């Protein structure tokens, strides 16, 4: 198995969206029990292209839309999974998973345990997080922390095309329900991705950048925003150890703790609210493991503690961005107050398209 750290030059580049599509198509070819269903997976838009071609290649028995009945359809996925199939249930927004919560939490997560190991629920729940252009209150939420809370659910949030493909294949082959979280703004971003099928194992974090001054953990597309922030921090000579957890359940605390043991500074940037979130879990575990060993500076960033507003005037203050992340990291590292990254650099950082490998 390859890893993105050891990729050879000249490997073809793939967009995140195409990596998802390729992973599912390859698995559907390999295993006739894999099928893909959910609202609008078979229309011409094909979930922003991520299910493009599946209907043509595999037919309407293995790629089909459903009525608007997410609660029941989640139960259907669970039942089919118990019967030995491997459903991929697709939702164009993570917000709609709230309709699936009962089945996911009370059935999917628990069946294997409460039936004494006699049944398995190998299913993937794909959902995309939206941002901007008025997505607002009901089309923008990152709700992974809710799922992280419940034993029995795996939760993954790949931030680049390589991990998107590798995690998708791993999720499909996993014998447990996997909540697969995507971010709309990641879809067009390219990275080198092997053509052959491969798995990115869950529970292994990815170092996106190595450094000594501060550990930054970026979740989902915040990993990309943190990469931009790290390039701004070069200006003041701060080197960032940037970690993308890739999977949130299981969570690779070993890598994060080892990094913070060196830097003694941790900033977690989540694509979600801070309160009782993934960042709280990571920070708590770091404090539990390293708290006694000298000074430790910890900070969490995420959505403002409000509903997401639609107007760009307020939305601009709702999300962490490369500037606010860089400034928070600078302050955490003891930098003098009032530092503003060079505006031209900041402008470039925003536009920076990352091609990896990370």
């Amino acid at each position: 198995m390859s890893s993105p750290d050891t990729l050879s030059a000249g490997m073809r580049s793939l967009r995140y969206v195409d990596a998802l599509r390729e992973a599912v198509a390859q698995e559907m070819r390999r295993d006739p029990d894999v099928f893909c269903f959910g609202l609008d997976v078979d229309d011409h838009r094909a979930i922003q292209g991520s299910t493009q071609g599946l209907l043509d290649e595999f037919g309407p028995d293995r790629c089909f839309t459903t009525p608007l009945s997410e609660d029941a359809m989640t139960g259907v996925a669970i039942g089919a999974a118990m019967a030995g199939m491997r459903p991929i249930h697709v939702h164009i927004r993570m917000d709609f998973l709230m309709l699936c919560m009962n089945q996911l939490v009370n059935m999917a997560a628990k069946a294997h345990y409460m039936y004494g190991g006699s049944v398995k629920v190998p299913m993937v729940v794909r959902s995309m997080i939206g941002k901007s252009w008025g997505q607002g209150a009901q089309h923008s939420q990152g709700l992974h922390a809710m799922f992280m809370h419940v034993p029995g659910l795996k939760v993954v949030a790949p931030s680049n095309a390589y991990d998107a493909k590798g995690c998708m294949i791993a999720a499909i082959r996993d014998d447990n329900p996997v909540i697969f979280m995507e971010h709309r703004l990641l879809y067009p971003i390219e990275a080198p991705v092997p053509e052959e099928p491969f798995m990115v194992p869950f529970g292994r974090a990815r170092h996106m950048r190595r450094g000594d001054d501060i550990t930054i953990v970026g979740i989902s597309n915040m990993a990309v925003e943190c990469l931009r922030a790290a390039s701004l921090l070069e200006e003041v000579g701060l080197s960032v150890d940037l970690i993308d957890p890739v999977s949130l359940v299981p969570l690779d605390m070993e890598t994060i703790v080892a990094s913070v043991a060196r830097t003694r500074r941790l900033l977690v940037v989540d694509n979600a609210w801070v309160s009782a979130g993934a960042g709280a879990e990571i920070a708590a575990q770091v404090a539990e493991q390293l708290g006694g060993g000298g000074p430790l500076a910890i900070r969490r960033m995420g959505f403002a503690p409000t509903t997401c507003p639609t107007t760009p005037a307020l939305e601009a203050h709702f999300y962490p961005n490369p500037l606010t992340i860089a400034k928070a990291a600078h302050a955490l590292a003891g930098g003098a107050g009032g530092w503003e990254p060079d505006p031209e650099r900041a402008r470039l950082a925003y536009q920076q398209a990352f091609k990896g490998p990370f």
Partner: protein
Amino acid sequence: MDSPALKSPETLVRLYRSLYLVRRVEERVAEIYPTDRIKSPVHLSIGQEAIAVGICDLLRADDIVSGTYRGHATYLAKGGDPKAMLAEMFGKVGGCARGKGGSMHLVGLEQGILGCSAVVGTNVPVAAGYALALKRRGRGQVAAVFYGDGASEEGCVYETLNFAALHKLPILFICENNFFAIHEPLHRRWAADQLTERVATFGMPARRITSGDIFEIRDAASGLIDAMRDGGGPAFLECHTYRWREHVGPAEDYAAGYRARTDMEEWERRDQVARLAAMLPEAERRQIEAEIEAEVEAAVAYAEASPFPAAEELHAHVFA
């Protein structure tokens, strides 16, 4: 079928005003959209106006409506302020939700417009809860809840129909059946095209109107609403209609191939805006149109002039 009273000159003028206002506001929105001043996903109801307008014409000022992300017609037909609507879509503080909700979350409690919701089906039980309160207050008020054929598939909608019938709630359910949920046609979602018959089995009057005729819609709703005010309980109307533009956005989308433009043209021939325009004396029609054009332009100007909310607004309204 049309009783003469339903086509009295006053009724005709009222209906035309409302239809023309909805049509023109949405056409203006579609014109403005490519300039990126409306940074909000717009779900236009162009072609579907007659349902909201026909029903809302029967409602009292203190009655309630509840709509969806495709809620511009519902909002305007119930007396929503075009200025507040446009400003909301421009993300301005003068908007009906202070710029926090956008096109999909129009609201106007003063005019009896419950907030529109963008998670399909969510508005239906909420409207029933409002109807429960209206019933307890005993002032003869009713609620009218609008939703799509896609929404009719959600479990909570069926659960609400059952509850509303059981408790004889004063609520009119209106399913705007435009035959599509985004790009998915009915035959990929329903085994039997008998929504109205299904709903009737919950124990409420249920009627299907296939013509798109605003007078037929209004006529059907009229008796049902009157009975409801006297404690008769809920009722259901399935109104066939057609969305002329794309699911979300300002343009047509017939090139995508999931539906035929000729289907739309059949509905265009029954366009209620054009039909009622032709029923009015020329001078009167021109007068109405001129007044509404001015109202629409004033709304656009208001939206342009209204400031964006100040940064502190982000933290306002999290808790009451």
